[in-house]
């Protein structure tokens, strides 16, 4: 029986059946898309977006908003779309989220807003992420952008370190509050993980450029090729700036620490993706940076990063790309859409499998990955069942390229160069979660440098919170 549309509005008489499935989004077919790096999902047309927006029940107490780390007024922006008033929809969106084109593409909606959607009890939830993407892309096609309103200049200067989603959000908020903002970035391109990590086929770099251009047009000064801690220190910055926001991300890649890890052909996910995305090695030799184009690629890990690597491998010409993951499919931390896309493209999932060593050939190149089979035991501290090795189940997989995508920890450069900023066990910067304040006066932090590898939207949420307390600090001088 179809659910009826009950607007929860006592005065509403209207009761209409709801389409049980999300309006499908057109995608490049799997066989075709593994031969290019173009974006996989094509986005909604205006008609499709309106149709999907009309599935929203406009709940009085919208649970979806509770699921959103930056509390976007989801029913309100969707209502505008349903009414075909796209301009109002994007305005509503930008009240809370400056980077909707990015979030619409990479947020784990199924664990945040969409999981809370009332419809999801019986049907597909409203495709909130797709609508978010639609409205942002719609705006990008318009001549007139919704320029941010700026408060009167305060005469205060803020240095934002790291141009990932955290830094971009903080810079955007602070400039709106009337402060002067300089954004320092170590790499030659702004965007953080959005440009060096997440591949073009999932997040086109033009989308990130668009957002950065918007910030620069709003008055944010961008200093690229600038490594804080090396080019200058935080203390030097504090001589010129009134406050500092640190969002340098979780850039330190983990390896498995098993024998043979430094053989040729063994990459960290960061290196593999940086070569391909930031340096455009997939266009070698048109671009100068090379990358190993393995035929038989094994990617260790089960998150978004691992899916990105396996799908990149296919596009670089791999005949086989494997995901080697120590738990079962249910525990894969990647977004559902990524797993689904990877499966469609033919990525092989070797689940309940743990690598224990690399075997090299006579020339020092990896040729096999030795693994052991796992089974699920008792739940561990994360609530997931702990994988335990099955004794004697060792076996070897043939491979010529291994990509280690098992996570990363906070970038140690700034903590090392700034001893009076307190750090935790894993090297993360410690902050007051309510304000983003670090132990050093005038210094705030947020995003992956605080949390370890987390998500785009959490980095943005942290930045937003920190921007508010930076504003307060600059206006009151109170620490």
């Amino acid at each position, binding site marked *: 029986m179809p659910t009826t549309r009950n607007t929860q509005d006592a005065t509403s008489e209207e009761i209409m059946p709801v389409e049980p499935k999300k309006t499908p989004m057109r995608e490049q077919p799997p066989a075709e898309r593994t031969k290019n790096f173009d974006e996989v999902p094509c986005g909604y047309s205006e008609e499709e977006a309106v149709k999907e927006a009309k599935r929203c029940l406009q709940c009085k107490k919208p649970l979806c908003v509770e699921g959103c780390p930056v509390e976007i007024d989801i029913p309100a922006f969707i209502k505008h779309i349903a009414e075909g008033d796209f301009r109002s929809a994007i305005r509503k969106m930008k009240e809370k989220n400056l980077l909707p084109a990015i979030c619409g593409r990479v947020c784990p909606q199924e664990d945040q807003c969409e999981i809370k959607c009332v419809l999801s009890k019986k049907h597909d939830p409203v495709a909130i992420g797709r609508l978010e993407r639609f409205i942002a892309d719609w705006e990008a096609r318009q001549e007139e952008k919704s320029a941010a309103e700026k408060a009167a200049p305060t005469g205060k200067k803020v240095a934002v370190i790291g141009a990932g989603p955290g830094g971009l959000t903080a810079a955007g908020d602070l400039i709106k509050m009337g402060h002067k903002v300089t954004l320092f970035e170590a790499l030659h391109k702004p965007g953080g993980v959005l440009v*060096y990590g997440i591949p073009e086929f999932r997040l086109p770099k033009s989308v990130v450029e668009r957002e950065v251009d918007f910030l620069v047009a709003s008055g944010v000064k961008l200093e690229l090729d600038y490594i804080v801690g090396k080019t200058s220190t935080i203390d030097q910055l504090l001589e010129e700036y009134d406050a500092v926001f640190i969002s340098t991300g979780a850039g330190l890649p983990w390896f498995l620490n098993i024998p043979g890890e430094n053989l040729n052909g063994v990459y960290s996910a960061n290196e593999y993706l940086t070569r391909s995305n930031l340096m455009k090695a997939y266009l*070698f030799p048109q671009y100068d940076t*090379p990358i190993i184009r393995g035929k038989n690629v094994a990617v260790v890990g089960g998150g978004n990063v691992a899916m990105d690597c396996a799908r990149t491998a296919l596009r670089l010409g791999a005949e086989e790309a494997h995901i080697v993951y120590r738990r079962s499919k249910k525990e894969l931390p990647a977004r559902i859409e990524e797993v689904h896309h990877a499966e469609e493209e033919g990525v092989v999932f070797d689940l309940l499998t743990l690598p224990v060593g690399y075997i090299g050939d006579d020339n020092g190149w990896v040729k096999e990955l030795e693994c052991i089979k796992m089974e699920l035991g008792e739940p561990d501290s994360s609530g997931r069942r702990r994988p335990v090795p099955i004794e004697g189940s060792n076996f070897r997989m043939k491979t010529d390229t291994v990509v280690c995508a098992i996570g990363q920890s906070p970038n140690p450069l700034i903590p090392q160069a700034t001893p009076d900023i307190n750090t935790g066990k894993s090297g993360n910067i410690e902050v007051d979660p309510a304000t983003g304040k670090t132990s050093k006066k005038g210094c705030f932090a947020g995003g992956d440098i605080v949390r370890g590898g987390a998500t785009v939207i959490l980095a943005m949420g942290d930045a937003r919170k920190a921007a508010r307390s930076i504003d307060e600090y600059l206006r009151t001088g109170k620490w």
Partner: protein
Amino acid sequence: MNTITETRWLGQDIREIWFENSRIAGSFKPGQFLVIRHGETGERIPLTIVEVSDGRIRIIIQQVGYTTSRLCRLKKGESLGNVIGPLGHHSDIVKYGSCVCVAGGIGAAPLKPIAAELRKQGNRLTVIEGVRSSKYLILDKELEKIADRFILMSDDGSVGEKGLVTLPLKKMMEEGNRPDYVYAVGPPVMMKAVSVLTRQYGVPLTVSLNPIMVDATGMCGSCRVEVAGETKFACVDGPEFDGNKVNYDLLMNRLKVYADDEKHAGCDIGGDNAG
């Protein structure tokens, strides 16, 4: 920024470039390096900072592959492109007593600021420079000026004495002139040969490693080296390491990863003395 102010050929395929970058020059300490990316399609390659003066930086580039050839063709007034630095830990130089600096080929470039600093700290300094042949000789005059004693070796005997840099070093050790400290920078085979001697005679050795890098901020692990059995990232943990504990065979192997993709990686891997 990064505008070239001076260029000059120092030897065959070896180019000296001075360029403007006051922000890096202002923070530089001996032992540190920078990363250059030239142009939109360029790759990122590490290069040692040889000297800074008045907001200008001196680098020395040996043409060994595509990127280094492009850099060597740049002229005064042109921009190097993106330059990031100063990177890595600086050298920790104190007074040891008597020191030997061993430079192989283009390794003379990174070694020069280290030698100068050793001297400044009051060490007695012998510099041994080795080259493939006279065509590749660089910085010899400058090193000679810094050193108390300067020894020049070449593979083919076209300049200095014929033989490897380890020859005079070995002689010193055997004759009882065991130095208190050795610094060596050059091709991995050369540093490895030096380490055989220093280990044998129990002399501390510091080397500067130049593996393939990408970001050089500790983010990718391309620059992995093994020191005392532990994996280190040369860009942030180095570039200097305890030369008696480096796994040179691994270093040499990892330098060959992209050998097939033309010599794109910008690293020199051949030569005995030199490069």
